[in-house]
C-alpha cells in the first residue's frame, strides 16, 4: 500500500536454534528438580530466573531471559515481563557488592540519606551506578524491616545496622578485601532455598 512510513524495521525475535544457552550442568539439574515442585512449568519462573541471575554473573541479560523462556517453554516477552517486574532481578551489570541503602521512614529520620550521600561521595557514583572497578553498585531500597536498628544497609544477604559514615568507611575497606560476588551468592542462596537437601546436584 502507498503511504507507508518507512521506519527502521525491528530485529526479529531469536529462533530457538539461535539461542546461546549458557546454563551449567548443575543449573540444568537444579531446574529439573525445581520443575517437579510445580504443576506446570510457568510456576517455576521465579526460581528459574534466580538460577539465570547466578549463571549469567549477577544480572539477567537478554540471553538469560531467552534461555529461561526456552527452558520453561514460555514466550520471551512473558519472561521478560516477570523479570522486569521484580526489582531484585538485575537488568544491568552490577558490581560484586550491591549496597542497598534503606531510605524509608525510620531510616530517613535516623540519617539514611546521609549514609547514601556519604556513599555517593566515597564511591564517586550516583544511585544505580557501579564503580569503574566493578566492586560496588549503589541502590536505594524501601523498608528492610529493621527499623529498630536504623539506618540499615543490605549487602548480599547481610544487614549492616545503625550505620554512621565512619562505620560505612570501615565496611567499604573490609569489603574491598573480599573477593566474593555477593550478588551471585545471594542468587545462589535463593535457588538453594527452593531445593530440598537431596535435590541439590552435589548430593545426587
Amino acid at each position: 500500500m502507498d503511504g507507508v512510513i518507512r521506519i527502521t524495521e525491528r530485529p526479529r525475535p531469536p529462533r530457538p536454534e539461535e539461542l546461546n544457552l549458557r546454563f551449567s550442568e548443575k543449573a540444568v539439574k537444579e531446574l529439573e528438580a525445581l520443575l517437579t515442585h510445580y504443576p506446570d512449568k510457568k510456576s517455576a519462573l521465579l526460581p528459574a530466573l534466580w538460577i539465570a541471575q547466578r549463571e549469567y554473573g549477577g544480572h539477567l541479560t537478554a540471553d538469560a531471559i531467552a534461555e529461561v523462556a526456552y527452558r520453561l517453554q514460555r514466550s520471551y516477552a512473558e519472561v521478560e515481563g516477570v523479570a522486569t517486574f521484580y526489582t531484585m532481578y538485575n537488568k544491568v551489570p552490577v558490581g560484586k557488592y550491591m549496597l542497598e541503602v534503606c531510605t524509608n521512614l525510620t531510616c530517613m529520620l535516623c540519617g539514611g540519606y546521609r549514609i547514601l550521600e556519604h556513599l555517593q561521595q566515597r564511591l564517586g557514583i550516583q544511585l544505580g551506578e557501579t564503580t569503574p572497578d566493578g566492586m560496588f553498585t549503589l541502590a536505594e531500597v524501601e523498608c528492610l524491616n529493621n527499623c529498630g536498628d536504623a539506618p540499615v544497609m543490605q549487602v548480599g544477604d547481610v544487614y549492616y545496622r545503625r550505620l554512621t559514615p565512619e562505620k560505612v568507611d570501615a565496611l567499604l575497606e573490609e569489603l574491598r578485601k573480599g573477593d566474593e560476588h555477593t550478588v551471585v551468592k545471594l542468587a545462589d542462596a535463593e535457588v538453594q532455598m527452593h531445593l530440598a537437601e537431596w535435590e541439590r546436584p552435589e548430593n545426587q
Partner: protein
Amino acid sequence: MPKPKNVEPNLVTIEINGIPLQVPEGELLVEAAKRLDIDIPIFCYHKYMKPVGMCRMCLVEVGTKMPDGTVRKMPKPQASCTLPCTEGLVVWTETEQLVKDRRAVLEFLLINHPLDCPICDRGGECPLQNNTQFYGPSTSRYIEIKRHLPKAFPLSKYVALDLERCIQCGRCVRFTEEVSGDAQLAFLFRGAQMQPHTFQLTEFTSRFSGNVIEICPVGALTSRTYRFRARPWDIVTQKTICSMCPNGCNLYLDSRSGKMVRINARENPAVNETWTCDKGKFEQSYMHAPNRLTQPMVRRGKEWEPIRWSDAYELLLSKVSEAQGAVAGIAGHRLSNEALYMFQKLLRGAFQTNHIDHRLTRYQGDLQAQVSAKLGKPATANEYRDLEATSLVFVFGSDLVEEQPMVFLRTRKAHRQYGVNAMVASPVPNAVEEFATHSLRYQPGGELALIRGLLNCLLDFLPAERLAEYREAEWLRALVADATPTATQDATGVSADTLLAAARQIAESPSMLILAGEKVWNHPNASEVVEALVTLTQLTGNHLREEGGLNLMPLGTNEQGARDMGVLPSHLPGYRSVADEDTRTAFESAWGVSLPTTEGLSTDGIYQACLSGEVRLLYLAGANPVVDHYDPTLAERALRATDFVVVQDVLMTESAQYADLLLPACPFTESEGTYTNWERRVQRFWRAHEPLGESKPDWVIFADLWLKALGKVPPFNAREVMQEITRLVPPYANCTYDQLGDQGARAL
C-alpha cells in the same frame, strides 16, 4: 473441558436499574446490561477474552434480594465485567456514587494520557474519548509534567506503538496470550513505568498482529498502513467478506473518497468472533493495484487495443459459434456464487459445453463425493464452534496458519481456553506443532503409510465395543496388517513411539475432528488418502458425532461455492449429475434451453484438449492457471496452443498475457454477491466502491452474454440471481438475501 454445543442455560432473574431481567446463569453483568441497552463504560473488558477487572471503569453498585423482599446492598461498587449473574442480583448503574467513581477513574487515566487527539488515528472512535465525553471530568486538575515515552514506535511492518497513549488495560497482552496464543506482547516493568512491549523490542511477528490495533481502547496501537490517511468521520464503511481464503471472515471495509483505507473485523460469533488475520487485514489491496483492467481489450499482434463492450461481446460470441462447441471454461475461486452460477449457466446453456471446471489441484477426481458417499455427511462436516466442542483436532497435511488462518486461530483458542487437544501430521514445520500434543513429521509422500500405521495401532487401542460397532474390524485388520509401527517408521520417518502415542490419544479422545489440507489435495493418490481418512473417521466413530468428523478443507476463497454452483464438468448446480435426465429437464425448463448431456473434461483434460486442438476457445473467468495451477507449464502450453483465449479478470494477470480478448471484471469490493466458506456458510458482501473504469461485475458480464447469445431475459441484480439459485439448488434454499442477513447462513 471442551465447550459443549447446544446446551440450554439455566435462567436467573436479576434487576438492573429497577428493570427485572432474565439472563443465563453466570453471564457477566456487563453483558447482561447490554440486553437492556444500558451502557456500562469499559476499557479492559472484551467480549471474546477473559475478564480481568483491571481498569475499574465498569464499576456498578450491586445488592442481593433477601427472602423477605428487602435488598441488601454491598458496601462498595463492584466491577461488572467480573461479576457473574446470580438469582436475585440487584444492580444500579447510574447512582451518584458511580458518577463520582467514573469521573475519578477517568481523571487518573488522563493524568498521563497525552491528549494528542487531533493527530491521533483513534480520534473520533476512541473509547477513552467517548467515556471521557460521557463520564469524565470536563477539566483537569493536573498541572504537573506528564510522563514521556517513545511515540510511533514501529513494532512491525503493520503495527506502531505509542506508549504515551497507553492506559495499561492489557487487552493487547491478553489477546496475544489468550487468543493468538503466541504471547508476544507482555507488560514490562511495573507501576507508572508499566508498558506493553515485545521481548527486547524485537519485531511483533504474530500473524494476527492487526487485531491488537482494533481492540486497543486508545490510540496506543495504530496501523502503519492506515496512519494519517483518514479521519473516522470521513470514512464510508461497508460490510464485506474477506476474499483471501475460504474461512469467510466478516469484515468492514472502510473507504475514503472511493478508496479502501483500512479493513476491520466485523463481529460474527459463529465465524471470526471479532478477529482477522494480517493477510486479510493488511494484504488485501488488489482492488487498487496499478494493473487493474479498466476496459475491454482485444489483441492486435503484440499490442492491446481497447474496444467497446458491445464489440467485445460480439467478437466473443462469433468466436464461440466459430468454435462449434469446442469451448471450455475455467473459473477462479474469488468469484461470487452468483458469478459462478451464471458462468456455468452461460457455458452450458448458451455455449452448449460441459467443459467447465474450477479445480487447479493435482487430483481432479471427486474427493468430496467420495467422502459424502461413505460418511453420509458433507466433505466438510463441521463448523467453527465444533473446534471448541470436540476433544481432539487432528490437522492432517495442512499448513493451517497459511491455508486457514481463522480456523488456526479458533483451534488455538480452543486449545488454550477449553483444553481441546491438537495433533498435527505434516512433512514440514507447522505452526500447530507449537501447541500440539503430538507432532507426526512424516517424509513427503508418507501420508497414506502414516494413516495406515495409525489404523493398525488403533485396532489394538480402541475398546472392543467400538470395534464391534465398526463391524469391519477384521477386514481392516487384514488390510493394514503390514503397517506395523516399525514398518510405518521405515516408510514415513515417524518414530514408532510417537505413532503409538498419537494413536493412543486418538483412541482415548471422546471425539476427533480432522482438518485435511493441501497435502491431501495435491497427493498423487489423493483418493486413497481420503479413503484412509474416511476409514479413520469411521473406525473411531466420529462420523456419528456432531462435534467430530472429517473435513476436506477447500483451499480457494469460494472453492466450496464453485462446487455447489456446479462449476464442474460432471455436475449441475446443487451437485446433481449432468447425465441425470430429471435434473437436466428441471434446469432446461427453468433456463429455457437444452443442455449438453455428456460429462465434460476436468481442468487437466481441458488443457490436453487445448493442446490437441479439441478445445478452440478457452474462457478463463477470474482464473490465473499460469500461476495457480499445480503444473504451471502445462497451463501455459495450453493457453499458447488455444486459438482464442478470453480472460476475464480484475488484474492484468500472468495468464492474461496469453489472452486474445480481455474483459475487465470488478473485484468483490465493487460488486454484490455471496461467498460460501469452508463450513458451507453462505455470507453476503455488499458493494463498497463504484466499478473502476468500464469494468463490470463478473455475473453482469455473464448475464449480458446470456442476453446477447440467446435473447433471453437475464437476472437484473445479484439478488435475483440468488433467488434463482435458491429455487434450483436445494442446499441453498435458505439463502435468499433476506434470509442471509448480515451474518449469513449455512447451506443445508
